[in-house]
């Protein structure tokens, strides 16, 4: 599992279990496989409770107990992440793989300045001297569009607004020189003009450094703006994978179509109503035995409740898991 043509990140049949309602383990992520190539921005989308965040935590082996990875493999740069010795795992986090998670307030040490955090990362992962690290730290604060970087070096997390903390975290994740950035809702706390700056930064870093990004989000606007490829997750499984333009132009899975249709601006003119998905994502352990989306799907038919569809290629580099695609080949590909 090495060699030059192997993808930067390769996830195979990842299954993650959480404690169920009556104590037994139930699968929250169920047999998920995908690759991320160097320089590629891949979005992982879906509603809350679909397993997006657990999947991204598993990439750096940070799934919090009692949740655990039951089976599957995660290869980064040809190496099996779960098998790495503890010290190398530490080096991987923040070194090879940069991480930005939600809740920036919890991710920063309240008694350390932003400058201290950044210089420490630069010394540890990039082997810089203290002096060089301070200069580089300021450069990163500037790049993430934090106003007045020189002053922010001395700021404590509580002195920053939510949006500024989010950008400080992004600087922290990028300063270690990662080849892959895993960013969970990196723009959710940001104002729209700042969000635009962060998206442009990610696009620029991909260009300059071949940075790969796994963008975990439920904001389809951010996806449209930044992603090369999109993975749609539903109830712990990937139900569609497609190049971004293909996904927006020709969504294959009814769930993808429903997500796109629910955006304000997508409704039929003068209908005065937005397309709404009925019901909610089933909890782990309460998932139907057939297609997990069947109870919410307007296009379901007999077979959908009986068996679970698997991902099949549907052309144009896309894959989807839906019986409609083989019941009426090509019919849904508009």
């Amino acid at each position, binding site marked *: 599992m090495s060699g030059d043509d192997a993808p930067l990140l390769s996830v195979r049949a990842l299954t993650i279990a959480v404690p169920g309602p009556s104590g037994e383990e139930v699968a929250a992520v169920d047999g998920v496989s995908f690759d991320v190539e160097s320089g590629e921005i891949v979005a992982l989308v879906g*509603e809350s409770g679909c397993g997006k965040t657990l999947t991204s935590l598993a990439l750096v082996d940070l799934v919090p107990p009692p949740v655990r990875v039951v089976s599957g493999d995660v290869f980064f740069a040809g190496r099996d992440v779960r098998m790495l010795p503890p010290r190398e795992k530490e080096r991987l986090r923040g070194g090879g793989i940069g991480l930005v998670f939600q809740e920036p307030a919890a991710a920063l040490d309240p008694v350390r300045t932003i400058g201290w955090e950044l210089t420490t990362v630069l010394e540890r992962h990039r082997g810089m001297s203290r002096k060089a690290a301070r200069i580089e730290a300021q450069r990163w604060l500037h790049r993430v569009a934090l106003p007045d970087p020189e002053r922010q070096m001395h700021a404590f997390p509580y002195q920053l607004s939510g949006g500024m903390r989010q950008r400080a975290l992004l600087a922290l994740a990028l300063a270690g020189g990662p080849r892959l950035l895993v960013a969970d809702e990196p723009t959710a706390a940001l104002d729209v003009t700042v969000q635009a700056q962060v998206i442009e930064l990610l696009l620029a870093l991909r260009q300059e450094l071949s940075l790969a990004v796994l963008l975990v989000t439920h904001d389809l606007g951010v996806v449209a703006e930044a992603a090369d490829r999109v993975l749609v997750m539903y109830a712990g499984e990937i139900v569609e994978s497609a190049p971004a333009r293909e996904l927006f132009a020709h969504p294959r899975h009814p769930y993808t179509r429903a997500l796109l249709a629910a955006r*304000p601006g997508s409704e039929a003119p003068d209908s005065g109503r937005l397309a709404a998905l009925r019901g909610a994502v089933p909890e782990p352990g309460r998932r139907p035995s057939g297609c997990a989306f069947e109870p919410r799907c307007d296009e379901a038919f007999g077979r959908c409740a009986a068996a679970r569809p698997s991902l099949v290629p549907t052309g144009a580099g896309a894959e989807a898991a839906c019986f409609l695609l083989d019941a009426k080949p090509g019919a849904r590909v508009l």
Partner: protein
Amino acid sequence: MSAGPPAPLLSVNDLHKTFATGAGRVKALRGVAFDLAAGETLALVGESGSGKTTAARLVLRLTAPDRGSVLFDGIDWLALSARELNRRRREVGVVFQDPATSLDPRLTIAEIVAEPLAIHGIGARSERRFLVAELVASVGLPTSAMARLPRSLSGGQRQRVAIARALATGPRLVVLDEPVSALDVSIRSQILNLLKSLQRGAPSRPAYLFIGHDLSVVRWIADRTAVMYLGRIVEEAPTAALFASPRHPYTALLLASRPREAPGPRSAPLAVPGDPPSPVAPPSGCPFHPRCASAQPVCAQEVPALVAGPAEGGRSVACHAPLGGG
């Protein structure tokens, strides 16, 4: 005296509010004025620190302004005594962003919805059970939800409870403070549909003051939109006109910063540098001038007044050099 347009339901004039914080005195509002007609939806949009939430809190009388007035149904809302205010609060409902923290976790859904009815003495005790059931059904919750606690409901269901509670007293004004910002896209559209149908269907035909930052949501729900920047309204217009042809450069920046609906080439760069300046030390003159591409010397000197343009269909702009000439 008989002719002329009807008086607005809500009329806000020259509101000023300064907060003392550790970082200095934050000028949250610096002369905000707007009107809201009965049954209409006005959105206040803007980024963090623009003052939109403070304006809503003043209307709700959760905090008092330093200066300015709020007329509700022609009465001086800020001058009401505590007792009169309590009597009239039933006419104003509110829904906050996060139903997880705005609902009392120890009360059942039925108790949460019944509380405002009891406080305002609406209906006899026996009648109230019926009213609560009707309210719970009107927001699309099953009857079985009535005996449950907030934590056993999903985020979308909790927001339905918050809406039922806000509408319980038959308010003529409902303040919606980022009511769908915490919800997934699919649930968000359910709640937005619900808000719109309740506005049309509720006997009190409430007006909505909608606080939001998601412009696609605002475009869908609001009749009129006011754009705020550093404590001031910089542009106010019928929503369709505002989105079609923004006149204030900041409105144009906000619209241009929106992510597109589908991937494809961009005609203009997505981002412009710069953050909204700190409300502790707002710039002189027009608060937007340091980020404005069309700023002129006068912009750093004089605060532009919010003036209605001629033949603008009810649009006002506060700019020395508005876009779109004419």
